[in-house]
């Protein structure tokens, strides 16, 4: 298997709630242009394109083919990837496979979402449409929430179950969620490509109303318009094409049974268990030659639609012991200047163009390693190994990418 590096990243100029000035493909092309600008490459240098966004969120079935000219895909292979919240990272992993296998030398991964043009609740309902229809026909009260299997509250309702279970088993308090939320929003204020960019205090978070205890409005992510592109290359090409690169040294993904919404056949697993995070991270660490992740991982970019998840993932991904993440938060270890900077970008929690959300994690890790961060959130210490994490599906699919400052050693 060949070594593969990220040689450049392109973002849309902004991530905001509504881009009213451009249509979907015009917005995507902004990130593609930025990636070419940042790498000094031209479309002729690209062998193949992978393309990812959420299914049904904008009601588009073949966006990669509508966008073929805008992503400079004419005369090239193009494949669309759609794996839920993990889409962005799956799209990068697909590009990685094409290069690592020797099939292609330079591949561009294009990820995006323009949520203002779609309906996220319709998109989410579409995940479980047949099951939901059956439950409604059998007397489930979808909106009122009475009776067995009564639901209410959409994604935040299910996330609240997870947050409650996490708090119970970890010993963290609801105030730790407030504190993590304030830290990440303040990090986002330093990131020009973040959506919610306001310096935020714990008191600001605590002033927001509860949606579903223990989660407040201030614990939830925005919906964003934006796109992110990464260009990956083989070791030989990377050395020719770029001065600074970040090596993809570990990739893994893992699923479990659906931990929410397995409505008609009984739910088996606590959505706060997240076994796939443990399995995927162990595989990715082994592939990257990382023996002690607690010491060797210098930073983490985690997929957190909700603020409690950053703490939960640190534990589930093996970056600290179970029940210790909130103690690390309390002693400042998760700050940009801390020993394990966590979501220095502000995370998904501050910027959520869903199809791009799990791409922004490795993209940020790569830029941190290359020391090419624009804005004020460059991690001061040298980053040798970074962990990027994606999450989604029916609360049950996890992707991990390890990025490093040196290529994997041949075994």
């Amino acid at each position, binding site marked *: 298997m060949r070594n593969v590096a990220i040689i450049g990243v392109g973002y849309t100029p902004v991530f905001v709630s509504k881009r009213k000035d451009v249509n979907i493909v015009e917005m995507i092309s902004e990130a593609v242009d930025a990636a070419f600008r940042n790498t000094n490459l031209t479309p002729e240098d690209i062998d193949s394109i992978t393309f990812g966004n959420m299914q049904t969120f904008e009601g588009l079935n073949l966006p990669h083919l509508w966008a073929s000219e805008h992503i400079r895909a004419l005369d090239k292979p193009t494949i669309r990837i759609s794996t839920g919240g993990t889409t962005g990272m799956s799209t990068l992993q697909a590009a990685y496979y094409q290069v690592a296998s020797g099939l292609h030398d330079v591949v561009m991964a294009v990820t995006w979402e323009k949520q203002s043009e779609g309906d996220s609740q319709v998109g989410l309902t579409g995940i479980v449409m047949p099951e939901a229809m059956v439950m409604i026909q059998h007397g489930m009260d979808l909106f009122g929430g009475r009776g067995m299997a009564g*639901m209410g509250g959409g994604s935040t309702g299910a996330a609240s179950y997870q947050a409650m279970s996490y708090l119970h088993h970890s010993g963290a308090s609801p105030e730790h969620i407030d504190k993590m939320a304030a830290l990440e929003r303040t990090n986002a204020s330093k990131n020009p490509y973040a959506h919610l960019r306001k310096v935020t205090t714990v008191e600001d978070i605590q002033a927001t109303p*509860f949606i579903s205890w223990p989660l407040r409005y201030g614990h939830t992510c925005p919906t964003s318009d934006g796109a992110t592109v990464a260009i990956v290359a083989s070791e030989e090409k990377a050395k020719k094409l770029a001065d600074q690169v970040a090596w993809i040294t570990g990739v893994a993904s893992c699923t479990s049974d659906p931990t929410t919404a397995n409505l008609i056949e009984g*739910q088996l697993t606590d959505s706060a268990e997240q076994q796939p995070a443990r399995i995927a991270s162990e595989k990715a660490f082994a592939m990257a030659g990382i023996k002690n992740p607690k010491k060797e991982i210098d930073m983490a970019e985690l997929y957190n639609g909700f603020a409690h998840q950053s703490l939960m993932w640190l534990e589930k991904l093996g970056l600290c012991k179970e029940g210790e993440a909130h103690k690390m938060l309390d002693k400042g270890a998760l700050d940009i200047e801390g020993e394990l900077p966590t979501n220095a970008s502000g995370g998904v929690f501050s910027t959520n163009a869903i199809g791009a959300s799990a791409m922004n994690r490795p993209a940020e890790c790569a830029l941190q390693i290359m020391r090419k961060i624009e804005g004020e959130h460059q991690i001061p210490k040298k980053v040798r190994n970074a962990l990027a994490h994606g999450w989604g599906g029916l609360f049950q699919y996890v992707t991990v990418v390890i990025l490093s400052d040196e290529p994997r050693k041949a075994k």
Partner: protein
Amino acid sequence: MAFEMGPETRQVQGTWDVTTYRYKIEGKGMKLLCDAMKEKKIRGIRCNECRTVYVPGPTFCRKCHIDIDEVVEVKDTGEVGTFAVLMADMRGNPVDTERVSAQIKLDGADTWLGGTIEGIDWHDVKIGMRVKAVWADNPEGKLSDIDHFEPA
């Protein structure tokens, strides 16, 4: 940053009617459960390999990947696996009365099911708390036949 958005473009409306889809659903386990609920009972399916009890019951064991069909009755009492307290409606507006929504592991079952807990201040609800079902007076064979749960 210097970037400024350009002028707003036109917006056109589009719809996609999801009610036109036709889904095929096995639904044996759901029928088993709903038929039992008419008698104020709860039935699921057990795997005779790993002994996992599913409510509602699937036709195959999701752990052993074998066909299963052994009907078992589980109790209408159980334990709170996790819970949330709904304080806003689907549109985000605050509700007048907080509602405790829980995932409950019924005694004899290995799966969790959703339900509402009443008869307790939401501040006092705990994971691991014992609860029992409160049935509708005239069950009709619907999921709504268990009206809610209350502390046992």
